[in-house]
């Protein structure tokens, strides 16, 4: 067994470390091997034993006399680990050197021998290995000095030619420089020297490590070597230096700006080596996350062309960075969009799923710009489907992220995957998070053509073991019924079959969805109510009880014993959840309005329960309202309580179109996994700007045929929700109309005024419009009497359309 392995195993079990090996401990081990090499003595065990130790024979000769002298001298310093180290080192060096070391204790950083080699690397590697082996035998009771106190000694090792040792020292510096910033400065010279080493590997290693040392003083010295490395002849060094700029920006953003490193990074975009380009792009995009000006990389057609060239040749990770960067570009016309798409499409066949998804993002975004009737548009749509399907054959974690994204894609462009519903069928050993996502997508893809298959699957799932999944499957059947009208009957009979299984949670879930089906198709499936009522007693969840009570109340006139049924719920009224109590109250009032003669007593009872015995203000208020309605004006009561309800539709679970468009721009990112815009959850990202799908300019005129929308509260909430920087102001000049005629004129053109108020003599009109592609625009029009110039403030998530809206306003008002 390798000595190191043993050593580590031992350390893992000892009390020295917490039971696991972290970087720190690793370095500790290494430092211990190289630097605290007292084979004969364990450092803290006192030096008396040292002179007596017979083992000293094995070490290079030192005289006993000198040794004794040392011990007495060193006595008070015993706890100083550096001293101990130095002391112990003496065993292996000649007498001359021993004196040298003695001096070195005072000038720790200049501890070198005549030949200029730092003392600890005087040993050949073979010797060191021997030392370590010996040490391994001795270390049973060894305790090591605090690692950070070895700093000066470690720094001395930097100039070794042994690459492994160098790497270790660098690693050590990264970990401990912060704790001893004054000492870390000692390392600067070596770094600067290493940055000019003939071996590019060492140059890169030095600049890479220097960027990881988060000590201000060091950072100052980093600038010059970094500047050199950014222009190094070796691309390996250049690409490492590019990342180093990002590190430096994290430590000291101002300095990076002042030193002009951002410009150097931009220059690297034109580098001949694709890897360097990719890293420069990655560094720039990381910097722009925390940079006030998020548009660090000027995406002009020349740069885009360079990126596309690099895309073909760089590594998979580089491709991801470049694709993500490309997706921020807005091509100026459809021809440019198409040519970019053509060059991105081969990435869809990449083995790395992250590359594939980033490519999908670029294509989904640029599809917006392509004319829908072009051949290329349709070819591209066809090309998108196979890679998405292939993502689903990956590991479950990949599948999960892919499915969350596919969920967005099928909402935006259902045509891409409409043929592929079968790949979303659930395998019984899929992890639960994959199952639930697949189910969701199955419903989104359900259509008249495939509904039979989907229903058969859903029914199968409803007999699975996992309760959450079964519930969702049952709910899915209900959603299918609501979505695909032709299948409603089939869905209902499937649900009835499931109710027959008498599995408790299946029955309850089925009843909840049947209520929704009744809401969607009133007066169609009432014949099944009898079956539902059979299961009344088994319902113990509030949702299911409320659903059942609602059904009984709604169809009270067709259920003979409705009063008995509802009465049975009334017994434990106070133990029910609020939801059930409210529904029960409403249901009994409905029943009373339908069958007033037999249920007077029941309604009295429930009203008094709700108003007198309840602490819940909602319930009490509703009770009082009903009570007064019933006692004063039964006709109105009927109108209110038994009014016709709006039908529900499947749209309820779709993502709002503006948000969907924004999320499409973020395919492959965390935002797409959470289905939330990044601004909603990414911390400290003041630089995050909302992204928008590009819009085809030519079609604005058509799109302004908008529908009236929004009520006051919605308007207010939306207005607040849109960031202020999206607000644009325009002047409409020379318009001689008053507020009312303005609003009338706009209304004739389908722009509706939601609110109007008068502030300090100015008329303010609040209007909203929605473009046919789902973009909302909120407008505030300020009209000062006597002033022919109006001020128009437009707020919209896609500020680039505001200009066109302004033009429309202008032309409407002046027509």
């Amino acid at each position, binding site marked *: 067994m390798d*000595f190191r*392995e043993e050593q580590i*195993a031992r350390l893992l079990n000892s009390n020295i470390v917490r039971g*696991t*090996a972290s*970087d720190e401990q690793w370095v500790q081990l290494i430092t211990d091997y190289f630097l605290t090499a007292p084979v004969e003595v364990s450092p803290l065990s006192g030096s008396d034993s040292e002179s007596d130790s017979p083992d000293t024979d094995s070490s290079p000769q030192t005289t006993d006399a000198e040794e004794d002298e040392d011990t007495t001298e060193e006595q008070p310093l015993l706890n100083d680990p550096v001293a101990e180290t130095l002391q112990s080192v003496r065993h292996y060096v000649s007498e001359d050197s021993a004196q040298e070391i003695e001096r070195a204790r005072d000038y720790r950083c200049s501890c070198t021998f005549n030949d200029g080699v730092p003392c600890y690397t005087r040993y*050949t*590697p*073979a010797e060191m*290995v021997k030392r370590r*082996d010996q040490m391994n035998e001795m270390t049973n009771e060894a305790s090591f000095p605090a690692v950070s106190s070895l700093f000066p000694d470690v720094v001395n090792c930097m100039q070794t030619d*042994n*690459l*492994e040792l160098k*790497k270790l020292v660098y690693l050590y510096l990264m970990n401990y420089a912060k704790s001893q910033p004054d000492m870390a400065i000692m390392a600067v010279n070596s770094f600067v020297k290493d940055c000019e080493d003939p071996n590019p*590997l060492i140059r890169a290693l030095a600049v890479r490590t220097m960027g*990881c040392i*988060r000590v201000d003083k060091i950072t100052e010295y980093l600038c010059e070597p970094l500047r050199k490395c950014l222009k190094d002849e070796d691309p*390996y060094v250049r690409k490492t230096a590019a*990342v180093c700029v990002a590190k430096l920006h*994290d430590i000291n953003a101002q300095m990076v700006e002042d030193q002009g490193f951002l410009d150097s990074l931009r220059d690297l975009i034109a580098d001949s080596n694709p*890897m360097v380009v990719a890293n420069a792009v990655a560094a720039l995009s*990381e910097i722009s996350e925390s940079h006030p000006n998020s548009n660090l990389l000027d995406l002009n057609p020349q740069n885009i062309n360079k990126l596309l060239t690099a895309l073909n040749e760089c*590594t998979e*990770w580089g491709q*991801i960075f470049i694709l993500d960067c490309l997706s921020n570009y807005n091509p100026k016309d459809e021809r440019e969009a198409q040519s970019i798409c053509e060059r991105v499409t*081969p990435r869809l*066949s*990449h*083995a790395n*799923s*992250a590359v594939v998804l*980033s490519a999908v993002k670029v294509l989904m975004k640029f599809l917006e710009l392509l004319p829908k009737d072009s051949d290329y548009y349709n070819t591209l749509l066809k090309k998108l489907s*196979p890679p998405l399907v*292939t993502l689903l*054959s990956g*590991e*479950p*974690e*990949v599948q*999960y*992220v*892919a499915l969350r994204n596919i969920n967005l894609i099928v909402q935006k462009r259902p045509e891409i995957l409409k043929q592929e519903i079968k790949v979303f*069928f659930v*395998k*019984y050993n899929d992890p*639960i*998070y994959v199952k639930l996502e697949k189910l969701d997508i199955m419903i989104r893809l359900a259509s008249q053509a495939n509904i039979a*298959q989907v229903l*058969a*699957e859903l029914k*199968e799932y409803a*007999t699975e*073991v*996992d309760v959450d999944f079964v519930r969702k499957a049952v709910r899915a059947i209900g959603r299918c019924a609501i979505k695909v009208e032709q299948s409603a009957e089939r869905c209902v009979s499937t649900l009835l079959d499931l109710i027959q299984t008498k599995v408790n949670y299946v029955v309850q879930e089925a009843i909840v969805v049947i209520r929704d089906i009744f809401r969607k198709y009133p007066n169609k499936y009432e014949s099944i109510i009898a079956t539902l009522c059979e299961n009344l007693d088994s319902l113990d969840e509030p949702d299911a009880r409320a659903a059942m009570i609602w059904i009984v109340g709604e169809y009270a006139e067709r259920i003979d014993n409705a009063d008995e049924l509802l009465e049975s719920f009334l017994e434990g009224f106070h133990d029910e959840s609020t939801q059930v109590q409210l529904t029960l109250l409403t249901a009994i009032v409905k029943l009373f309005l339908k069958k007033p003669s037999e249920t007077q007593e029941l309604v009295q009872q429930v009203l008094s329960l709700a108003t007198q015995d309840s602490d819940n203000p909602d319930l009490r208020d509703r009770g009082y309202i009903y009570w007064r309605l019933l006692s004063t004006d039964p006709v109105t009561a009927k109108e209110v309580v038994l009014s016709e309800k709006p039908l529900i539709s499947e749209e309820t679970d779709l993502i709002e179109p503006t948000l969907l468009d924004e999320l499409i721009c973020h395919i492959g*990112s*965390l935002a797409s*996994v959470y289905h939330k815009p990044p601004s909603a959850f990414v*911390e400290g*990202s003041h630089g995050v700007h909302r992204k928008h799908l590009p819009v085809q300019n030519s079609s604005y005129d058509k799109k302004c045929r908008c529908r009236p929308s929004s009520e006051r509260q919605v308007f207010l909430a939306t207005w607040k929700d849109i960031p202020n920087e999206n607000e644009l102001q325009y002047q409409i000049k020379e318009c001689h109309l008053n507020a009312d005629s303005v609003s009338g004129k706009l209304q004739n053109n389908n722009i509706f005024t939601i609110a109007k108020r008068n502030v300090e003599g100015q008329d303010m009109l609040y209007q909203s419009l929605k473009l046919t592609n789902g973009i909302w625009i909120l407008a505030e029009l300020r009209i000062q009497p006597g002033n022919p110039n109006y001020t128009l403030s437009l707020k919209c998530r896609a500020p680039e359309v505001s200009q066109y809206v302004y033009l429309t306003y202008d032309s409407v008002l002046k027509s």
Partner: protein
Amino acid sequence: MIHSLFLINSSGDIFLEKHWKSVVSRSVCDYFFEAQERATEPENVPPVIPTPHHYLISVLRHRIYFVAVIQSEVPPLFVIEFLHRVVDTFQDYFGVCTEAAIKDNVVVVYELLEEMLDNGFPLATESNILKELIKPPTILRTMVNTITGSTNVGEQLPTGQLSVVPWRRTGVKYTNNEAYFDVVEEIDAIIDKSGSTITAEIQGVIDACVKLTGMPDLTLSFMNPRLLDDVSFHPCVRFKRWEAERILSFIPPDGNFRLLSYHVSSQNLVAIPVYVKHNISFREGSSQGRFDLTLGPKQTMGKSVEAVLVTSQLPRGVLTANLNPSQGTYTFDPVTKMLSWDVGKINPQKLPSLKGTMSLQAGASKPDENPTINIQLKIQQMAISGLKVNRLDMYGEKYKPFKGIKYMTKAGKFQVRT
């Protein structure tokens, strides 16, 4: 980008941590442990977990959770792919990727992680390059290192790192030049109760083992390339040539690699190699259930079906199973309720069957769920999609290599519902 990595074993101990930027306290993993507790099965822990200041993205491989901590908006797939690459690298280096292997090689592990990522950006993830930077531990090398004191860290900048073919190192030499290609296809299928196919698709890969001197340029052509309409290539494959001529043209990496993976979708007709006749039933009111299973070959194009293994998760109420296999052996784990029947080869003359009874807990009601039957199998010398390699040619080098191609069909996620 990626901030930190924690490795967590199945008993919930963090046994390794690595930070590429500032140190993130390991208490961040508490959120992961919470999620782990909520999940019923180890594999059900969600891959992306939000915490107040970080995001945890995890993969579960070889019963070890690899948990990456990220702080800003990073493509989750990027992180997941990277973690998989870490796992693959460990496996490549240590033979297995287990907690013990990682702990044994902790120094190499840290050296590798340091090389693979710089400040959260992937640096060197190609196994060829890594192996030049850090030589994999072998018994021989360990001994040599101990004696000579040399290290396992490469001193030179890997040659492939920046060349146009980063996947291949220069100066490769072999005495025997050989190139082997394995066409392996896996059938994923769901068969319903009545035996009809609900979905069936084929996931295929071509794995290669190429040991050729110098810089060989290979082309591989197929008899029926039309089958391959959904493919993912190794970066070495020249995409344009494929688009234009349907020929794979590439300079191969040295050693083992996956040249291509492809997917034959459910819209094509997929041959199902076996059929299953089953009768698993419980009677109401009785504590006994019947179990009856027979396997038979279906569309195998005359090849024999081997290494058949049938597994099924029986309902929770089942206490014991008393079954009688006509061939092979079966086991039933009363704790996990997993029945597994190692059938071996299917003899078309004498079909294998497994018959007998299952006993339920006394007084337990009839189980609601229907067990699903999972089948694994192998068919040698056949790719079930019908894919056939036409020829392999080599340019750029003078010697004559030895070429070999092998076909195999396996069952992937092959499930029969009952």
